[in-house]
């Protein structure tokens, strides 16, 4: 077995093994003590509910996933643009940053109802909220990437009389790419949570809706099944971003 094969197996095997051990402990804890299913359902109960409600849950995941994807795209574009603007002008930076930091300090979950009141009960409110929740990591890491471009490369650009636009796209952006992806990975998970939080405020369908309606009738195992689907959705988006990042790294490193 080659080293890299072994590494690959480890990187898949270890998390799976951890999950299996945790699930076994959980199952044992639930069956050996008299923890009620309403408080903590056993993994087996959860899997049973997952099986029974799979089509409904997948449909809900599709709704939530679509909105999360839209929110994520919005967050990435907005985060990138604000980072680009703030890294190119001190004036803009000093105007925008305090407001954004202040916004970051507000527990945004408390703001979620405002979005519904202002933007209504449709998808726009949820997407906007989730985008707001998730754009900060992209902004901060991209901005730090853009402002940490190799000064030598910037001097090279100046010596070649490159325009600000040229040096931005051909040097600063590629240099900031690893930072950009790092921010995107964090944002991707937050976009999913953001949509679900917004669904808790108002929703006609989706995973947040499924979790709420199941918990309203104390179907805790169904709640857990929906959360499991939610985790899978989040992991899927995260994985897609990570795959994109690997692709970019391949381009970057050759």
């Amino acid at each position, binding site marked *: 077995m080659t080293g890299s094969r072994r590494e690959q197996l480890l990187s898949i095997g270890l998390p799976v093994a951890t999950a299996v051990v945790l699930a076994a402990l959980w199952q044992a804890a639930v069956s050996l003590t008299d923890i009620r299913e309403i408080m903590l359902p056993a993994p087996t109960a959860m899997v049973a509910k997952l099986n029974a409600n799979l089509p409904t849950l997948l449909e809900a995941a599709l709704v939530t996933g679509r909105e999360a994807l839209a929110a994520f795209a919005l967050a990435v574009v907005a985060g990138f643009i604000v980072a680009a603007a703030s890294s190119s002008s001190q004036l803009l930076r000093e105007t925008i940053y305090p407001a954004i930091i202040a916004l970051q300090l507000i527990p945004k979950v408390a703001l979620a109802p405002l979005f519904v009141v202002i933007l209504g009960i449709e998808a726009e409110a949820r997407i906007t909220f989730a985008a707001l929740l998730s754009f900060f990591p992209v902004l901060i890491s991209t901005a730090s990437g853009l402002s940490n471009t190799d000064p030598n490369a910037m001097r090279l650009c100046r010596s070649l009389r490159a325009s600000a636009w040229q040096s931005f796209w051909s040097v600063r952006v590629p240099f900031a790419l690893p930072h950009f992806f790092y921010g995107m990975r964090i944002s991707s998970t937050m976009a999913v949570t953001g949509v679900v939080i917004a669904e808790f405020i*108002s929703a006609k369908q989706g995973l947040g809706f499924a979790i709420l309606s199941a918990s309203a009738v104390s179907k805790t195992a169904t709640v857990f099944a929906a959360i499991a689907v939610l985790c899978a959705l989040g992991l899927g988006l995260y994985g897609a971003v990570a795959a994109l990042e690997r692709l970019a790294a391949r381009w970057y490193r050759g």
Partner: protein
Amino acid sequence: MSNTPTLSRRRALKVAAGASSGLVAGLASPFVARAATDLTFTLPWLAEGSNLIAFVAKSKGFWSKAGLNVSVARGFGSNAAAEAIANGKFDYGMSVATAGIEITAKGMPLVQLATAGYDATMCIAVMEDSPIRAPKDLEGKTIASVATSGDYPFRPIFLKRAGVDESKIKPILVDAKVRERLLLDKKVDALSGFAISMAPVLYSGGQKPRFMLYSKYDLPLYHNVLMTQPGRLAKDPGQCEAMVQGLTEAMRFTLLEPQAAQEIFFKEVPEMALVAHAKERLWTGLGIWMVQAMYAPARTNGLGYGDPADYDKMIDLVMQNIATDPKDKRPERDAILTNRFAGMLKLSDAEWAKAEAAVKEFKAVLS
């Protein structure tokens, strides 16, 4: 915390024995000047008109004269509150009757000692000028509900009994914080929820709401009930009786002196005075509470009395619609309801008339 000193426990048992043999009035007085027993008590939700009596009982000394030093905490939903009482996080508390039945069916038994409200006022709310005049008009309309609210599981039953085709309803789940706003902004056509909680906000919009009560469709869904663990009732019935006694005294005081009761509330919970339109909101909530505190069982059997027939129906409703897991166990009605201590206090006809006159305006909006 809830451990009663041996001496007073023995005394309590004696008193309990006396109480069950029919001696009622003034029995709490021997407890005065005993070492106080600290007890914790949870509300189902925030302090508001519907649970104001807890603060009256505390402030007027209806509990402390029996040596009970009760600290009242806000709750986080009727199910959460019932669960917290069942698992002993709180010694006592008030929560919605059906929540208590459900938690019991899920294997965390509770016993309900006294009824503080006969109608949870679960309803569909619309604004006064809405074209929705009867439940049937809801077809094709958007109804916003709060999933964590106790009314949510009963909405389909109400719709069915009112002859509404549920598939023609456009349901939306929303957070409690935005529900009333959405109706006032006309983003939805109707709300489902507890009139008693929704009314204060809906009234503050300057318009009047209308409420279609589920209870009018043979859904006797009680509101707040004093609950505790069955173990506590078995071990310390005297303490339970004193709790019931204090709470029913507070009910009587509040029904007869609603103005004084409101002043007590703002003195006990000063932060609630900071809410916009605090006085109007409290009066709305309290007014609706008073309307449904005057239902038949209280008049016939005395304050706090729970009608066993109503409990049979509630248990049926919960078991058929909420506690549907095969592991859920139907609670025995007599295990979950006791009228051992309730119904001791009665109001005279003149007193009922006085209370009724004070809240005429609210009787009108509850259709």
